[in-house]
């Protein structure tokens, strides 16, 4: 799947949870990705970030990825 699209979708999710109160935003992003994304989509995003393409990825997503 196109990594740009995955990044855009993940960033959209992060934008929502960043606006939510509390200190568990990264956990909530991780939970959302686990609940609604198939495992292949998650691992593609992980590999993309792991390969050093993290520049355009929201910081909250980066923090969430190790939790999934």
């Amino acid at each position: 799947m196109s990594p740009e699209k995955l990044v855009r979708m993940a960033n959209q999710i992060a934008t929502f949870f960043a606006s939510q109160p509390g200190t568990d935003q990264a956990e909530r992003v991780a939970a959302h990705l686990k609940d609604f994304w198939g495992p292949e989509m998650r691992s593609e995003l992980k590999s993309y970030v792991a390969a050093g393409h993290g520049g355009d990825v929201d910081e909250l997503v980066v923090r969430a990825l190790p939790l999934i």
Partner: protein
Amino acid sequence: MRDFVIPTDDRDMGTPAKVGAPVTLSIDGIEVTVPEGTSVMRAAAEAGIQVPKLCATDSVEAFGSCRLCVVEIEGRRGTPASCTTPVAEGMVVHTQAEKVKKVRKGVMELYISDHPLDCLTCAANGDCELQDMAGVVGLRDVRYEAPPEAPLANHFAARDTSGEANPEWLPKDTSNPYFTYDPSKCIVCSRCVRACEEVQGTFALTIEGRGFDSRVSAGGPGDDFLSSDCVSCGACVQACPTATLQEKSVIELGTPTRSVVTTCAYCGVGCSFKAELNGDELVRMVPYKHGKANRGHSCVKGRFAWGYANHAERILNPMIRETIDEPWREVSWEEALSFAAGRLKRIQERHGRKSVGVITSSRCTNEETYLVQKLTRAVFGNNNTDTCARVCHSPTGYGLGQTFGTSAGTQDFDSVMAADVVVVIGANPTDGHPVFASRLKKRLREGAKLIVIDPRRIDLVKSAHVEAAHHLPLRPGTNVAVVTALAHVIVTEKLYDEAFIRDRCDWDEFEEYAEFVSDLRHSPEMTEMQTGVPAEELRAAARLYATGGNGAIYYGLGVTEHSQGSTTVMGIANLAMLTGNIGRDGVGVNPLRGQNNVQGSCDMGSFPHELPGYRHVKNADVRAIFENAWGVEIDPEPGLRIPNMLDAAVAGQFKGLYCQGEDILQSDPDTKHVAAGLAAMECVIVHDLFLNETANYAHVFLPGSTFLEKDGTFTNAERRINRVRKVMAPRNGYADWEITQMLARAMGADWHYTHPAQIMEEIAATTPSFAGVTYDLLEDVGSVQWPCNEATPEGSPIMHVDGFVRGKGRLMITEYVATDERTGPRFPLLLTTGRILSQYNVGAQTRRTANTVWHQEDVLEVHPHDAELRGIKEGDWVRLASRSGETALRATLTDRVSPGVVYTTFHHPGTQANVITTDYSDWATNCPEYKVTAVQVSLSNGPTDWQKDYAAQAERARRVLPAAE
């Protein structure tokens, strides 16, 4: 005599039912107790006595014009009309006194003296109240003759015997494609005029002239039924006691002799209809007065647009082809199914278990949908199931799930009659949900206030006897800003319901929320620049909703189909919780569902992350229920959603799709991307009535059955589970649930359902909210609203009555985030899309009916200011381009849209509005952002090259080889 398959008490009670204290009276010696305010006529009907009548019918208020229903009441003078006389305690009524019998006979004699006596060849023969009443009053003779000097003093003879034309005679108006108006048979009872006003709320009809010159008239001078405001709902035809307003199908086919009660397969209102037939030939569909969703009303689609079932383009035999550039080859069911199963198995062997999936249909029944998701979960061994709700109401599922705890409208449709303030957001009920709109308009005429939040000036904003108190014409894409600003006003002006919030929500969460919305950046004055909504108007609307009594919110796809669709749904739920407008009659949050079974298809576990009943696949206890029932192991990970399937297909990871009753190529956004995804697959199985656009890319076509040809249930927008009953045998040979079962068996599954009732038993056994649902129960009570279980054996009209499904209601922070789809120099306008009354979604059904008379092509609504800048005139061909693609269509100039906004429908494949829409989607659910696309509009000469290529490709893809000898 009629032979009804479903025996029902369909008697016309004469006047509408009333609510009030009990009143007891005596009618012809029978004691009867009825609510105060009831007419003597209705009381008599309750006692089993039918007082003769012509102008009264129980769908409209009494009128008292025909004088046929006169009765004698002891102690009262004269002969009062029983329809307009309310009952009184101790009243003694005689319906067959000598005096009234004489009056009635005289009245009937006058009526018949101006009526053609062609009963035997009349279309209403056997179904004519005038004929019945002449019989009941014992009319044996008509003494009146026209005077010798005026032999044509009647309305029914076109010419006299010498050939002289009769100036009083008017020809039949056959302009409406579905019914005729024959003035020569009219008795001027006004039932049609009153039905148009009271039931439909369109006010298209009137009585013009006085006395002998009185005529039913549609529209203004020079209008006929087609050119008038008539929306062809059929209420007038239903109300007409004679053949004056008559269905053309009855004229052609004859009076029906049997009927079956079933549920309409168009929008999410889910109207109940009586399908009336002779043998297995459908003659007409008549709204069923005991249907709890529609209460005897209908719209042009359900009432009349069913001819597609017999359309010449309907495919009745299975077809296959090796590749999509080959013509189709008709084959036996066995060959088609073994070809499909063979391909799917081969794909799974080569590319893995998860390389195939299914799309369930919101047009199919609960039982069929349940089987399709079961096919992928239990037979394919993955969770790759999704449904058309992905592209419409998936944000409702997420948003209401987060805030209230379950994805469902909170009310029944009757609830609107108790609302004081109705907020309509991103919905156009008069076009999309017309039967609900009629109820709403009725309530508005009774005095309820209306707030419309929509970029367009939809009909509800101002139409006959209805005017919105506030219309907030927001810029497309700014829903969250508007909804949050409404909450800002409610919180900062302390208009919230503190007792409700303390009782039903979490107070700490409220305080956090209150702090968030109170921030100045959410004030209407600050958001005005983004939203285009005048601050004062927004403040006034917020005050009205919070303080105007029962506040009810109805919303549609203008809310969900955005990058922030889910956030807006949460914002709407917030408004209801803040103001305590939840958990009783007249209030609530009500998603208006697009298709007949959107609610049901979601309930049935069509989404890739949840099993039936909205339970996540990650939960081992839930999986265990289905693993035990199905004898398989269920994947604990969510599967692919439709957009993910297409992305994965383009990437070469997803290869096979079974698509039931959905046309993703036409309905899903970014057509070119959808086409690329489909073209990349090795086995696309389309299961549909027609060779739809998606079928251009299919390898297997399985012909489907219409809603008239199968048993099952639909669940409408109010969670109402209603029976779909088989009216005739499937022309394609099998009901859709049987076809899915045959495919599962070809894949090796051991399924052996013999009736959909057994599928419902399995649903009830596995899904708590359906635990009490059985076909027997539905036969007994007609319909139930889920949850239907031990606690609520007859269903739940209103949800969250004593507490939210999730416990405490949850107020969610709703920060506005502008969509990435922005206007700029290249694409300076915003396109938003919607649908109209006469066509339905991709139009596969309605385009194959006479409804095309009202809408033959999609047109682009452009504000005159934007049009002038571009030199565009009414009816010009224009090119509509976005960064995704371009198409061409005709323009119409209207100030219904604001400057900077253009609007079109997506009913016609020739236009393919979705070539324009982008792949942006809701953050939580991937619901596409159909409602906001940055576009440019310019003059053009006609269809684009892309449209021509597309049409040519579609034509090639639809070739069918002649059947082998």
